[in-house]
């Protein structure tokens, strides 16, 4: 597995050294790290002059929020990369391709419902979807899965039912998510071919899949031991953890920075109005970046101050799109496609929220 990775990495390394951007990028990196260590010193409260003490307080608050998001997401991300590794090592591409339908609509539908069998939230859905796509599963399956799995899975369905004390909100949430995931899955999965949708490294593994498979095969014949299999899964999970983890860190940093810098109270004061309220809660869903397994409890605190459409938009849009998941999506899809996914989800959720406010 490391072989194709290494050779492509070395090609990239040479390209990097030749590019004039490398100098700019390197000096920017150095500056960024000087800044990071300056901020770390301020936050550590070690020999910080008293006139900078307010900064220490704010940075410590920032750290608490950042680590809050990171630690909370960590178990779910690890679950996702473990599921992905097990898929990779134990389910052959042929079997998976045979199991999933090829008609775009059916494929999108099955992808959207796959979360019922693979219970993961957004941090886990992205590595799992990436692995499915690498295994050559039809595009609509992967796209619909990545969008729907954070909501359409047993844990989230139950937590929503518990939070709202009934099944009405669950039905709306699941129904709309299913609808959006299928629409976007069919639109993006049929209008273009795979190479314009998937990130280059995902495509590479599809092409070199045959090689991977024989490699697995030889190895399994060599050592047929349980500990070896566990080691393989962990080793795979590790490489994926590092690939996804950086986007989790970046996303958590951004979300924590936005929370520290933007006061929430004025934002929430805009709670009225059938259109503005929807936009405000959607913006809040992006900024909060909380896991879909708990966001219904947070949505509940908005029920009395916001319109029902706004709460519904929060519950549907939040799990599909937030800062960390958007960054993580770039590991699987081309940036242009990520932008299209974000815009489509945004439009659909906004439309649904406003329609709900006017019609119900």
């Amino acid at each position, binding site marked *: *597995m490391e072989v194709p990775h290494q050779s492509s990495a070395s090609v990239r390394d040479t390209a990097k050294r030749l590019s004039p951007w490398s100098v700019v990028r390197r000096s920017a990196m150095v500056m960024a*790290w000087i800044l990071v260590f300056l901020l770390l010193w301020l936050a550590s409260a070690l020999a910080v002059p008293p006139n900078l003490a307010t900064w220490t307080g704010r940075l410590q608050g920032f750290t*608490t929020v950042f680590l809050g998001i990171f630690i909370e997401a960590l*178990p779910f991300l690890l679950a996702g990369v473990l599921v992905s590794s097990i898929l990779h090592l134990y389910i052959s591409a042929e079997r998976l391709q045979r199991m999933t339908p090829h008609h775009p609509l059916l494929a999108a539908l099955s992808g959207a419902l796959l979360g019922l069998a693979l219970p993961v939230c957004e941090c886990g859905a992205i590595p799992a979807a990436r692995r499915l796509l690498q295994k050559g599963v039809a595009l609509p399956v992967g796209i619909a899965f990545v969008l729907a799995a954070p909501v359409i899975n047993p844990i989230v369905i139950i937590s929503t039912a518990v939070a709202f004390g009934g099944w009405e909100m669950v039905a709306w949430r699941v129904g709309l998510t299913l609808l959006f995931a299928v629409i976007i899955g069919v639109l993006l999965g049929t209008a273009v071919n795979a190479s314009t949708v998937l990130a280059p490294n995902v495509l590479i593994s599809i092409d070199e899949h045959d090689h991977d498979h024989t490699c697995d095969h030889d190895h399994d014949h060599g050592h047929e031991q349980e500990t070896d299999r566990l080691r393989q899964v962990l080793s795979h999970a*590790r490489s994926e953890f590092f690939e996804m983890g950086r986007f989790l860190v970046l996303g958590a940093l951004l979300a924590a920075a936005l929370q520290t810098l933007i*006061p929430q*109270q004025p934002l929430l004061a805009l709670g009225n109005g059938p259109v503005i309220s929807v936009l405000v809660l959607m913006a809040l869903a992006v900024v909060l970046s909380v896991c879909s397994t*708990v966001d219904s409890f947070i949505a509940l605190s908005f029920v009395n101050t916001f319109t029902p459409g706004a709460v519904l938009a929060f519950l549907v849009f939040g799990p599909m799109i937030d800062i960390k998941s958007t960054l993580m999506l770039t590991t699987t899809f081309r940036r242009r496609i990520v932008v299209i996914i974000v815009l489509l989800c945004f439009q659909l959720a906004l439309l649904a929220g406003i329609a709900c406010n006017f019609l119900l």
Partner: protein
Amino acid sequence: MTLLPSTKTRLSRPFNVTALIEAILMSGTAALLVVKWQYGTLAYYIHPRYTVLVLLAALVLFLMGGVRLHDMFTPSNRRPGGLHLLLALPLLLGVVVPAQPLGATTLAGRGLELNNTPIPWQQPIEGDPTTWNLLQWSMALAVRGEALQGEPIDVVGFVFQDERIGHDAFFVGRYVITCCAADGSATGLPVQWPNGETLPVDTWVQVQGTLTKMTMVNGITIPAIAATSVEPVAQPESPYLFP
């Protein structure tokens, strides 16, 4: 597979620095989580119901780090890069920055909830009002409002200053967490206390008194505590309240 030395790659290093760094990062992060749990500060970041999940994650990270250590002497020409620096951030922040729960200094960005909007997940709040915490009080006030006037009150929270309530008063507040520190919102009540505005922020206090009303600088009347005693106390083991 990673254990098989590849014939295609040049042997550029006798041992794999990247593997060592990745192993250190993973086991370091795992150790950080376990240490924070041991010291009880893990609860500053996440709701306690996730503690088990986080410890499981730490176990998986330890195992992954251990497996990675095996690759130490497998030559590789991959060098550690920005990716590793980025993943070192949570570890660095966790070690260097002293663990602090959300408090008055972080309130600036969030604001204290003053209007006591009803929280729909409330269970009926009953029993002796002196056993209620600030969250239970805000729920009870949202439902029963005026009927609670004159009831005895005994709560613990941190001191928060807000110019909206004028002199001889301060706020006593608690953070309410549903999932992790990212969704924390503060709830609290103003306390009438001579020279209350001089109390240092973020001090933990126990406030005893009765429920009354006070008029803020902007003319709005809100429930408040007429305090008979304000005692500094140690920070509670769990600084947040959970609905």
